[in-house]
């Protein structure tokens, strides 16, 4: 759909603004090059920090416990305030905004969970199954940035003080800690303004001098006051990003187009803003950091898509800056088709595209947890795969991994000493899957009890509806919606293993159970033919395959384990997801060989996706085969299980190619998919960049839900992307 009257034109940049943004791009490349040399590969999103190798910091002695750690509101508040004061005040004269974060505070100060609050009794279970328990997980929630934009830092401070007095709790440490964080931020901003004035005084170029003075004026205002203009709002957001990243590497932003739209419209109406200036301001936010944000999507009543001129400006800012940026475009049947098409054009041009958060699977799925559909529509894609209702929900997505590969491994060991049958194998898989899920649930109970007093969300608490009003950390009742996530991983590894046993041992009787155990114990050494026999079946993703039936069966049981009851002590609600992030290497690193032909310690399969190279016989690989499999195997309660598509640019360039891809996006939505991460690549460039990353330093790829410079990834990560891309031709 298109919106009548909406200006959907691309923004023409003035020479000055184009030069500024181009220079920011070059500076970003130089910063990354320095980081690569000094730190090494970063298998994560761009994380826009500026590296200061000589920076040192010592936490205030009064913040430290006797055992040398820092935990709790006031010690963390003290440390944060000191850190924000100590941080170098970075200003780039080509940016519209000041400030940058420099690295997580936890790299400099021992902020962590107190050992006495750790659930030691659960650790053996987590070790047995190589589980990522999620206990102590941080930052996987999202603030409502409009709270900050409305109040400003001064207003946030006033709010903390007001509610401290109004509630008069016996223990005021929540408020005292939050107050210290805000004070630290105000002091940081004030110093930044001083630095901008100093740089302006030294600057010879009149344009740059004026820009630096403007940065100073904006920051002087923002110390105490809320933003009034789009540029001030962008500066506020950049500061939020700096603070959020510094504390536990938070990365969630919000519905960015709607957050900025009032400022844009007001400035435009007053005649003080041109569109290319707006592009520059937003590009400067992205230069500051690559927080996850969303554009487009339905308003809560579902009656219209909220795409605005601001959505197009954000897209153009992304495209102009040409660095990895984590924006999701929310797709529904009412999506603005021009915005959708342009996002694909930009992805095709240089990889700086968005990913696609799909409304049906996300919204209707989330409403199955008992929440109204209108509330579900407020969930925004604010993490690499995950969604949250900004300011209202504490979802802790993407912090757990229920390693179904290990559930299968232990089930197979039970079969070895018990009944040799598929039924028994599945029965034992059910047992071990439940054991893992139950252990994560028990860990969540403890998390709920203790994380607030150890490592509270001192940043997000400020930007959520409830924590300050109630004096409670968002994890323990500060917000209304607690929805603890558990991610199941290695679905294809397990499903293909079941199918291989069913076909080769049970039906065809080509090998026996004993032979299977023998070759697994030997890691297939000397038995490559058997390994290939097991690997080369119709795997998950092939139409009408036994493996797909196993995948759905295993998925169903995992979902049941999550959903049939809450956590054992507090009955906290659980939402199942299936997302592995980039952890498939690590999660396979302890898993012995599996009957799908996977050797010892090789990576597990990705999220709920088929393994690369799954297609067989007459059914050659196609994006729709993969998309259909991922849609069928969704966990179904609104948390994303992403589809990664590496599309050959040649296909998109073909007449009608983009229309077909748009159709695929919509169809995946209607089939219940939740998220599409899209790469448009050519084989030649990808292989060249893998061989020598320096040849294509600008190549941007979508690793999973986040984008990264290909050259910044480690060789293992680059290989994952190569395998994924080339496997479509391997069949």
């Amino acid at each position: 759909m298109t919106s009548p009257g909406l200006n959907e034109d691309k923004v023409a940049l003035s020479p000055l603004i184009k030069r500024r943004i181009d220079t920011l791009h070059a500076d970003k490349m130089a910063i990354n090059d320095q980081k690569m040399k000094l730190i090494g590969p970063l298998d994560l999103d761009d994380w826009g920090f500026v590296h200061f190798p000589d920076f040192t910091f010592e936490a205030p002695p009064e913040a430290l416990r006797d055992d040398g750690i820092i935990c709790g509101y006031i010690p963390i508040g003290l440390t944060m305030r000191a850190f924000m004061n100590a941080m170098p005040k970075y200003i780039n004269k080509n940016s519209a905004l000041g400030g940058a974060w420099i690295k997580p505070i936890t790299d400099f100060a021992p902020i962590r969970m107190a050992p006495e609050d750790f659930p030691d009794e659960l650790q053996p279970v987590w070790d047995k199954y190589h589980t990522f328990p999620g206990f102590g997980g941080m930052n996987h929630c999202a603030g409502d940035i409009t709270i900050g934009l409305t109040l400003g830092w001064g207003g946030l401070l006033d709010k903390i003080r007001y509610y401290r007095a109004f509630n008069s709790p016996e223990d005021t440490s929540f408020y005292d800690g939050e107050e210290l964080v805000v004070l630290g931020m105000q002091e940081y901003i004030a110093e930044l303004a001083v630095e901008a004035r100093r740089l302006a005084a030294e600057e010879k170029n009149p344009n740059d001098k004026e820009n630096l003075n403007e940065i100073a004026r904006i920051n002087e205002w923002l110390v105490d006051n809320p933003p009034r203009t789009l540029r001030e709002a962008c500066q506020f957001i950049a500061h939020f990003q700096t603070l959020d990243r510094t504390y536990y590497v938070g990365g969630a932003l919000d519905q960015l187009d709607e957050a900025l739209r009032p400022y844009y419209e007001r400035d435009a109406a007053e005649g003080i803003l041109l569109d290319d200036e707006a592009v520059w301001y937003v590009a400067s936010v992205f230069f500051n950091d690559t927080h996850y944000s969303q554009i487009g999507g339905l308003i809560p009543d579902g009656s219209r898509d909220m795409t605005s001129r601001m959505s197009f400006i954000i897209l153009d800012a992304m495209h102009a800056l040409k660095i990895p940026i984590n924006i999701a475009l929310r797709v529904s049947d009412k999506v603005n088709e021009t915005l959708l098409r342009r996002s694909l054009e930009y992805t095709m041009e240089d990889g700086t595209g968005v990913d696609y958060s799909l409304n049906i699977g996300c919204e209707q799925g989330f409403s199955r947890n008992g929440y109204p559909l209108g509330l579900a529509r407020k969930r925004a894609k604010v993490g690499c795969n995950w969604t949250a209702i900004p300011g209202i929900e504490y979802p802790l997505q993407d912090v757990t991994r229920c390693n179904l590969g290990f559930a299968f491994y232990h089930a197979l060991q039970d079969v070895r000493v018990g009944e040799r049958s598929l039924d028994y194998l599945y029965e034992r898989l059910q047992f071990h899957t439940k054991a893992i899920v139950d252990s994560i649930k028990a860990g969540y109970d403890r998390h709920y009890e203790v994380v607030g007093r150890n490592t509270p969300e001192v940043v997000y608490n400020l930007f959520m509806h409830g924590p300050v009003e109630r004096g409670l950390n968002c994890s323990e009742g500060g917000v209304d919606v607690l929805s603890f996530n558990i991610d199941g991983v290695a679905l294809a590894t397990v499903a293909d293993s079941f199918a291989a046993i069913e076909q080769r041992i049970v039906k065809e009787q080509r090998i026996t159970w004993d032979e299977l155990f023998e070759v697994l114990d030997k890691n297939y050494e000397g038995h490559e033919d058997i390994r290939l026999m097991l690997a080369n079946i119709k795997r998950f993703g092939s139409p009408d395959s036994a493996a797909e039936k196993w995948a759905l069966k295993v998925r169903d049981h995992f979902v049941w384990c999550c959903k049939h009851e809450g956590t054992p002590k507090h009955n906290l609600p659980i939402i199942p997801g299936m997302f592995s992030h980039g952890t498939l290497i690590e999660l396979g690193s302890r898993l012995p060989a599996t009957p799908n032909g996977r050797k010892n310690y090789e990576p597990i399969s990705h999220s709920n996706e088929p393994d690369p190279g799954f297609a067989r016989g007459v059914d050659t690989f196609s994006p729709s085969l993969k998309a259909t499999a991922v849609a069928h195997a969704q966990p179904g309660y609104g948390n994303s299980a992403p589809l990664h598509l590496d599309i050959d640019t040649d296909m998109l360039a073909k007449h009608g190619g983009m229309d077909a891809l748009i159709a695929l996006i919509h169809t995946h939505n209607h089939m219940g998919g939740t998220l599409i991460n899209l790469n448009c690549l050519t084989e030649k460039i990808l292989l060249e960049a893998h061989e020598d990353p320096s040849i294509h330093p600008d190549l941007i790829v979508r690793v999973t839900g986040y984008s990264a410079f290909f050259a910044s990834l480690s060789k293992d990560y680059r290989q994952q992307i190569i395998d994924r891309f080339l496997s479509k031709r391997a069949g």
Partner: protein
Amino acid sequence: MQATIFDIQRFSVYDGPGARTAVFFKGCNLRCRWCHNPESIATQPALEYTPERCIGCGRCIVACPERAHAIDGEGRHVLDRDRCVACLACVDTCFAEALTGVGQAMTPDELVAAVLTDAPYYARSGGGVTLTGGDCLLQPEFVREVLTQLKAEDVHTAVDTAGNVPWEWIEPLLPLIDLFLYDLKAVDPAVHEAWTGVSNERILDNLHRLIEQECRVWVRVPLIPGCNDAEMPAIARFLAPLAVERVEIMPYHKLAQGKYAALGMEHTGPICAIPTDSEIAATLRLFTNNRLPAYAS
């Protein structure tokens, strides 16, 4: 009733409008010397051998009733194509997939069930199913049954054909086919015969008849430098008065040469240069100057 299918390519954007499922039939009665789908020529399944995948397990030697497989003195697998009757008994034992069967016998019901898994994508994209090959029209009864079932499901249908079949085979199918992708390699009968092994009178006649019947037709013209490139002006002139919906120029590529080796077929055709962008553009202009909507594929 069965047909031998060697590929089901889903989400194809190269075989008609929208996202389509292209079904490749084995069997062709042309012998284009540049053929890029040599596996499509014979009607029966074929054995494809990819030596670099072989792990030397020797299972094929045991499985083969014709003793076509052996291990030579240096431990390398050797396939004797003269002995091989393409029974494909070895394929079932070759887990390394060095030996694979090209072609799978399918009934109309099986084929329709397979392609309909992508039906949701057709609806959104304006796509559908394209029967191609080889030449699917060499099996008109099978095609009629498949198309009848697809139309019952309201699926858009296209047939890609070289048109070298009796009109009586095509005519009954017309109500079932929404779009013809019609291959045209040359207008001059002698040139056509020299490069494809058959004359083109029937092909041109069938094309005229399709136009007379007001069928939707996209003409597909391979551009093979040194073979039929001199025919392009004549093809453009020939098509100019016809109500074809579009013309697709299909530039030569060299991707097929490995296929010939894997199938044990000798590649006797010319090794042509790949057309440059400017050559493709010039060819397109020939057609557009004749008011034909032409695109490069």
